[in-house]
């Protein structure tokens, strides 16, 4: 698995106990399990803590502008459809500044796997509220508690047209790895939300304890998709629903676009 890392840049910059490394490890193990050619994988990221991942990965990588990872990835996939394209980003990058790219990539069902490391905060800039910060939680921009309700990002991308949607946590790392492997194999837009601890800028401000305490919280508050089906909304209020949430087969954007190009050529020849 270490063969996928640019080891000369390790140790990475992430804080002690940060969930980003766990999610990255799960992604690399999923790729290793699928046995994909290292030189046929491109990983694209935007800006933020989790977006630093591309710097450590020995694939073709693009570290792009804030929120625009999916826009770059869309161009890359259309130009080089033979590549396996993966986007790694945080909740701030993908859901706030990149929110529009996210829903439209899902709507197109373009064959990109997006891993959203959801630490519920802007960590790199020291803890501003993101669209996934739960209501009432503290942030530098919400010193009296966050007023806004968070997105359910999985529901959002499912409604927008993603064909594979799943969620897990850094505690449930084996499941996370399995779900990422499934997402990578799905042809179309795949989305995995990895709930991950930020012990420094989210955990400390909200008195959630150490990284170990935050993992214990995920252990004690995660419910499977199946168990959640028989629970009431008030029982689910503080729970994290984990597992495969949605999987359907729909035509992917590259195939549809190839048909358009074929048709255009046919008419030009006429």
């Amino acid at each position, binding site marked *: 698995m*270490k063969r996928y*890392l640019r080891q000369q840049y*390790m*140790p*990475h910059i*992430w*804080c*002690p*106990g*940060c*969930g*980003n*490394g*766990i999610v990255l*490890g*799960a992604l690399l*193990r999923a790729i290793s399990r699928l046995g994909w050619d290292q030189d046929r994988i491109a990983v694209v990221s935007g800006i933020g803590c989790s977006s630093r991942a591309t710097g450590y990965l020995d694939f073709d990588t693009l570290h792009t502008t804030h929120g625009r990872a999916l826009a770059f990835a869309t161009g890359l996939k259309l130009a080089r459809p033979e590549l396996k394209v993966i986007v790694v980003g945080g909740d701030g990058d993908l859901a706030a500044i990149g929110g529009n790219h996210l829903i439209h990539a899902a709507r197109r069902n373009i064959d990109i796997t997006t891993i959203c490391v959801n630490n519920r905060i802007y960590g790199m800039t020291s803890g501003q509220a993101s669209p996934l910060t739960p209501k009432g939680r503290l942030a530098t921009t919400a010193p009296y508690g966050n007023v806004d309700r968070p997105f359910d990002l999985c529901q959002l991308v499912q409604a927008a047209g993603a064909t594979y949607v799943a969620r897990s946590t*850094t*505690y449930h*790392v*084996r499941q996370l*790895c399995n779900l990422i492997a499934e997402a990578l194999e799905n042809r179309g837009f795949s989305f995995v939300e990895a709930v991950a601890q930020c*012990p420094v800028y989210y955990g400390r401000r909200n008195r959630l304890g*150490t*990284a*170990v305490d935050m*993992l214990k919280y995920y252990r004690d508050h995660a419910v499977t998709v199946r168990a959640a089906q028989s629970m009431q909304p008030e029982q689910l209020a503080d729970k994290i629903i984990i597992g495969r949430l949605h999987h359907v087969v729909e035509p992917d954007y590259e195939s549809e676009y190839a048909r358009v190009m074929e048709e255009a050529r046919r008419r030009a020849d006429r």
Partner: protein
Amino acid sequence: MRARIEFNPRWCKACGICIAFCPASVFDTDQDGRPIVARPEACTGCQLCELRCPDFAIAVEVEREGE
């Protein structure tokens, strides 16, 4: 089954996740909060420490019998 635990102190940031969640209590903690492989014979080879290490600092090699 035999498991060999490789630990890289240069990459470890002493978060304590491997120590806290080892189901076989293989690790002790050193004065800096890093793991010490104190009871390697208790290791079941589950690799949860490796999978949950945020710093790629632990690897468990499992040799099963007949391999």
